């Protein structure tokens, strides 16, 4: 395996690193391999085992090569209950964790990511076994100064059903690279991402979904509300192999621009080799709809209250199709509290 210090650094011509170069999210300098501590991972609902780091395919991705080298352990999360909450607490200078989910039947897990570390690396992996269902939610509430590098690798086997929801509220600079492979026929994947950009947050979500087998379905919804001088990036890479006939896949990116200084990029990309598939993608960026604003204000809500309601609705709408009640409700509840603090003081 390539070591980090021997690996070639990605250029900005690469889709993945176009908007957030590796140098901006490395904990120190790109030619260094600093000592990285461990985040605290806790749960009252499920068994967490710490084992020597599991080998993971890093696919020559620089962030994964880096994490593979600095991590010493893997947290194994064996989901036994239907609903599980896991707290990931990041303290200190630079910390990281690899969490691997083992789920055999139908279960859900909510990750609550908090802390004031300067740099956090998080690698989530899991294998959704045949005929099993897994719902994963992650709420990022890191400190406003934190840099987060998140890498995910998920594999969905035959007749497996996997949903992944992300609510991104915290951190200063975020680079997420979430990859899901639908390796079994009749497998399903839905992914939901809601981003609230505020202050000078830079939040970059790159999502790769790879259909390898026939009759597999995927849907990606990314809603980003961008205020102040924030910058949201959403890039998608949907690949449908030539064996993956009768695939149905869609990606939609929506950006709500709340300030003239806010920026948003939304770039879905498709690579379709099969010929009997349905594949759709779309992207839209717009300010608040004046008709909606007028309607709410005509019902007595001030401009600030109406804006808060519209932003909340826009972001909540990202999760409307989340099947797991516990994941959906956790997302919506946290979002409401966050927006009340952020938008209404």
């Amino acid at each position, binding site marked *: 395996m390539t070591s980090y210090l021997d690996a070639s650094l990605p250029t900005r011509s690469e889709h993945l690193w176009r908007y957030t170069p590796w140098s901006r999210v490395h904990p120190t300098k790109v030619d260094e391999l600093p000592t990285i501590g461990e985040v605290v991972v806790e749960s009252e609902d499920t068994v967490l085992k710490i084992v020597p780091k599991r080998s993971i395919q890093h696919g020559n991705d620089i962030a994964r090569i880096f994490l593979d080298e600095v991590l010493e352990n893997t947290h194994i999360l064996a989901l036994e209950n239907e609903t599980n909450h896991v707290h990931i607490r990041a303290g200190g200078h630079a910390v990281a964790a690899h969490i691997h989910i083992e789920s055999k039947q139908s279960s859900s897990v909510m990750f609550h990511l908090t802390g004031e570390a300067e740099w956090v690396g998080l690698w989530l992996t899991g294998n959704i076994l045949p005929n099993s269902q897994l719902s994963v939610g992650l709420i990022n509430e890191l400190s406003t100064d934190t840099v987060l590098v998140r890498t995910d690798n998920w594999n969905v086997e035959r007749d497996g059903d996997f949903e992944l929801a992300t609510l991104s509220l915290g951190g200063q600079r975020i680079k997420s690279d979430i990859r899901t492979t639908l390796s079994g026929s009749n497998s399903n994947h839905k992914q939901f991402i809601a981003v609230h950009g505020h202050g000078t947050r830079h939040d970059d979500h790159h999502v790769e979904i790879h259909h390898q087998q026939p009759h597999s379905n995927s849907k990606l919804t990314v809603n980003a509300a961008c205020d102040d001088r924030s910058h949201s990036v959403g890039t998608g890479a949907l690949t449908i192999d030539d064996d993956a006939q009768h695939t149905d896949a869609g990606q939609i990116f929506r950006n709500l621009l709340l300030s003239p200084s806010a920026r948003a990029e939304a770039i879905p990309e498709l690579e379709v080799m099969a010929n009997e598939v349905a594949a759709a993608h779309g992207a839209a960026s717009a300010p608040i709809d004046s008709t909606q604003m007028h*309607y709410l204000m005509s019902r007595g809500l001030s401009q600030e209250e109406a804006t808060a309601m519209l932003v909340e609705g826009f972001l909540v709408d990202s999760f409307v199709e989340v099947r797991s009640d516990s994941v959906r409700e956790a997302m919506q509840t946290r979002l409401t509290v966050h927006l009340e603090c952020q938008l209404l003081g």
Partner: protein
Amino acid sequence: MGEMMGDALLRVENLHVSVEGTPILNGLNLTINRGEIHAIMGRNGSGKSTLANVVMGHPAYEITQGTIHYKGSNIEEMEVFQRAREGMFLSFQYPASIPGVQVGTFLRKSVASVRGEAPPPREFRKELKNAMEQLSMDRSFLSRYVNQGFSGGEKKRLEILQLLLLQPDLAILDETDSGLDIDALRIVADGINSIAQDTGCLVITHYQRLLDLVKPDVVHVLLDGKIAQSGGPELALKLEDEGYDWVDALA
């Protein structure tokens, strides 16, 4: 509120309004007192919805001349939400959809804003239940997103539900009868009648059928941005029978 004037609930004088530089209203005069129901009829494009929107304070409409006084004060500078809090209500012809916002949450926040404080939860639930029963609305409405995926009739019922909860002093109903079947029209009309006694109502409509159920005190005909004729309920019947050509001739 601004400068005080008279006792009328709403007094519109010599109102000229433009939208993106195009004049729509051209010297409209109208006075509505509390407890009165005024109906406004007119051809498409005559300015009916413009009147509704400009009274409610829609920012796209520019008053180029004339005044609007509400409860004795000039409200030209008053923001939309302040007008709502002062008791003004517009039932929209095409209410906006608000994805992700549940009807129950929206109603609670709206009522709290207009009343100046959040209603006690138990009392509000009871009030809401009664109003929804009055309009034959299922409780499942409350968990749906505001107007999203609603039929035309469901949208209008939600508008009237808000009317019942907000108990405005001035209710402007912009083609509330459009898209309603006969049963729904009766339910909506009953809702309007239940608040009309203490409210000034401005009912914009194309059809006599609503005015059979909501009896107007005064009927106005709007032509080219100003009121060309005013009269009693018989005026609406005449329009139903003869159309607007005779109004053109008089003008």
